[in-house]
């Protein structure tokens, strides 16, 4: 008879079979058997966080920077409820997470036992799927299924709730079955005729634009290579959503910047005026589309996505191709190269006028700002950070708010998986724990959290985690003492009534860093910025960098509420600024 294993042992056997190296977690009564088993599995390292939300975001950072699923281990009740924000965040941004939660013993479920909550009930709407394992026989099968669901199709978080008595119960262990390639929930069945239709549209286009999203990143690093090949082949301008940054080089001439609410003038105008829009792995989010009725009114729209429910959800498209981005793009390139569809070597001539128009828009320099030699402008700080770190392979995480948009606008990414930001849910406090996870996955790389002082205080306790594991993450705080994006909206939409958006009391970040046992650096003026950034980069350990920036700076350009792409508010450096600001004011 084969050996019997406890539920806790089976958990680790499954994790080993799934090649899990790290789990992010926090112990508690209902997961103690699993924690007890940890010592017997040296290949799996546990990262002890300071709050379960931090575990979730760290696992997200790990997953997004490495392409592997992130694993979270939490206890029942508050352990599970604390991780809900991170699960929802992962669900919105399609990040593969496997969360294992302890639960009170099966005979106590439903009795309002100590630290009991309906974990599967609470997490049902924020996971791809979840399971309550009520029978030890189901445990290994469920755990392997959990990894499969999290990582296949459109990735996302899953949760497995394991009652404490199941963790003690004993049974045989069965290895996961070899996966069948095709299963019901995978969608990769596009047809060659769809590819041909797409190529016909490409061949006819005079004003095309490619709009890429996080789906390209999720399709793996190869998809980014394929995308680059495709974009160079057709010569079209390409824009990207917040999540898609890095799939195409940010400093390439064909890249016209991020689009959407705080996207560039050229990208948004190209979206509005184009005659062919190719959406690759993006989902027409409301921060992208602006006013739906006036979204890209004269274009044929193509949508390539692995999730059929993303298609026609917001914007009706003319051609939908459901499939994995890399597979679809490879098929397109192959067909173009076969020249079977009448597409000549390129239609770059067709679109030369379009490029001229885009160059005109570019001269607006919509990301421009008026620099100062007295105060540090936040945009300037991000630009300097980029210039001083671009020569090494740098990973950037962010919190949520103005700093996030400035980071997206001014930091140029050349590789996928280098940019981790909370886009869908917009979770303040995401960046610091995410940086912890990224640094775990890439111990020798430079990892910087571009943060705001309000956001970073929400999960500041994870500095302790960084210090414990010697993770040299750099927390680059653009400190303007405001919840900047809230303040900006209040300025533009609520008659400058800055209701509760100013933090009257803030910690001394240098002292805070020292209290955590890491290094604190403060920069007050532009002259010392470069030296201090270099000091931060050169320091071999975690750093909190307090960058005191102009508190009144707003994030431009911007599509105001309920407006289409071609009605942007530009920044103060634009010469027509006065007129547009006047009009902008009338709008709000």
């Amino acid at each position: 008879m084969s050996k019997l294993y406890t539920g806790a042992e089976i958990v680790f056997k499954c994790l080993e079979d799934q090649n899990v190296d790290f789990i992010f977690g926090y112990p508690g009564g209902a997961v103690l058997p699993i924690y007890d088993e940890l010592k017997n599995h040296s290949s799996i390292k546990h990262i002890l966080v300071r709050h379960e939300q931090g575990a979730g975001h760290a696992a997200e950072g790990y997953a997004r920077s490495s392409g592997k699923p992130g694993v979270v281990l939490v206890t029942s009740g508050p352990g599970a409820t604390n991780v809900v924000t991170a699960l929802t965040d992962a669900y919105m941004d399609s990040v593969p997470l496997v969360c294992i939660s302890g639960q009170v013993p099966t005979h106590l479920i439903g009795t309002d036992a100590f630290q009991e909550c309906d974990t599967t009930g609470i997490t049902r709407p924020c996971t791809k799927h979840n399971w309550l394992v009520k029978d030890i026989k189901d445990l290994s099968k469920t755990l392997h299924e959990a990894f499969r669901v999290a990582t296949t199709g459109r990735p996302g978080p899953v949760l497995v709730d394991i009652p404490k008595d199941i963790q003690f119960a004993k049974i045989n262990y069965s290895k996961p079955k070899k996966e069948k390639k095709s299963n019901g929930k995978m969608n990769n069945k596009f047809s060659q005729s769809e590819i041909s239709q797409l190529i016909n549209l490409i061949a006819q286009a005079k004003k095309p634009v490619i709009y890429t999203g996080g789906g390209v990143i999720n399709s793996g690093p190869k998809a980014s290579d394929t995308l680059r090949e495709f974009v160079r082949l057709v010569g079209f301008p390409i824009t990207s959503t917040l999540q898609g940054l890095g799939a195409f080089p940010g400093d390439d001439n064909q890249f016209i910047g991020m689009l959407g609410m705080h996207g560039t003038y050229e990208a948004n105008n190209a979206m509005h005026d184009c005659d062919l829009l190719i959406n690759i792995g993006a989902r027409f989010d409301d921060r992208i589309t602006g006013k739906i009725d006036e979204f890209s009114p004269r274009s044929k729209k193509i949508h390539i996505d692995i999730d059929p429910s993303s298609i026609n959800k917001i914007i009706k498209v003319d051609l939908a191709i459901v499939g994995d981005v890399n597979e679809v793009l490879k098929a397109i390139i192959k067909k173009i190269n076969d020249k079977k569809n009448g597409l000549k070597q390129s239609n770059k001539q067709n679109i030369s006028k379009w490029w001229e128009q885009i160059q005109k828009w570019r001269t607006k320099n919509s990301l421009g700002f008026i620099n100062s030699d007295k105060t540090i402008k936040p945009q300037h700080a991000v630009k300097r950070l980029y210039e001083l770190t671009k020569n090494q392979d740098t990973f950037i995480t962010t919190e949520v708010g103005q700093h996030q948009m400035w980071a997206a606008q001014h930091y140029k990414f050349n590789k996928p998986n280098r940019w981790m930001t909370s886009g869908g849910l917009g979770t303040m406090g995401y960046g610091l724990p995410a940086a912890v996870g990224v640094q775990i996955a890439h111990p020798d790389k430079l990892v910087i959290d571009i943060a705001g002082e309000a956001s970073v205080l929400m999960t500041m306790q994870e500095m302790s985690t960084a210090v414990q594991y010697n993770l040299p993450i750099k927390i680059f705080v653009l400190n303007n003492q405001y919840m900047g994006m809230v303040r900006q909206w209040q300025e533009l939409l609520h008659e400058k009534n800055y209701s509760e958006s100013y933090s009257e009391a803030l910690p001394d970040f240098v002292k805070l860093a020292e209290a955590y046992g890491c290094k604190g650096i403060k920069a007050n003026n532009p002259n010392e910025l470069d030296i201090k950034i270099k000091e931060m980069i050169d320091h071999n350990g975690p750093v909190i960098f307090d960058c005191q920036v102009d508190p009144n700076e707003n994030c431009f350009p911007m599509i105001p509420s309920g407006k289409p792409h071609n009605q942007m508010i530009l920044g103060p450096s634009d010469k027509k600024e006065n007129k547009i600001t006047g009009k902008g004011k009338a709008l709000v």
Partner: protein
Amino acid sequence: MVNPKSAYSIPTKKGKSDTHIIVVWVDNEAGVLARVVGLFSGRGYNIESLAVAEVDATKNISRITIVTTGTPQVIDQIKLQLKKLVPVHKVADFKREDKKVIFKEMALLKVVGNKKKIDKCLRACKNFNPVILDKTKLSIVIQITALRREIDKMSKKLKPLGLSSTSRTGAIAMTRGAEVFK
């Protein structure tokens, strides 16, 4: 136009809503109904009626029949979102007007009153396969099977005749002919 003062765009014109019957085949496991119903409530779709029971005990399959209304776009989303749920095997969608599909709902009607009123009730029900399940001097329980709106009508009609209690199953559906939905 009123300035919306919002970070979100203003609602756009809504298309015409139709009533659809959505049939979902699911694994009969704990929480599966909550997943389906939660999807509807979470995304703001409405449920007019719901009928669910296991239909295949060996394969553990339950069949959920949901009557809902929505614009074509919303109905498409409902189907696509349902298909994404892990325990969902297949999803069928029928328009209420579809002649190829049979829709039926069962109702139990309890009428309390004298013989005259009870007889009147029975006569009123005669087109809807009435079955008398229980009868006393003062009351009767009638089972009828009909379309949703016919039962709605009957409820109204029987109210003055002493209808005191109604229990309904929610609509269920089946395609006509030899064809089986795959």
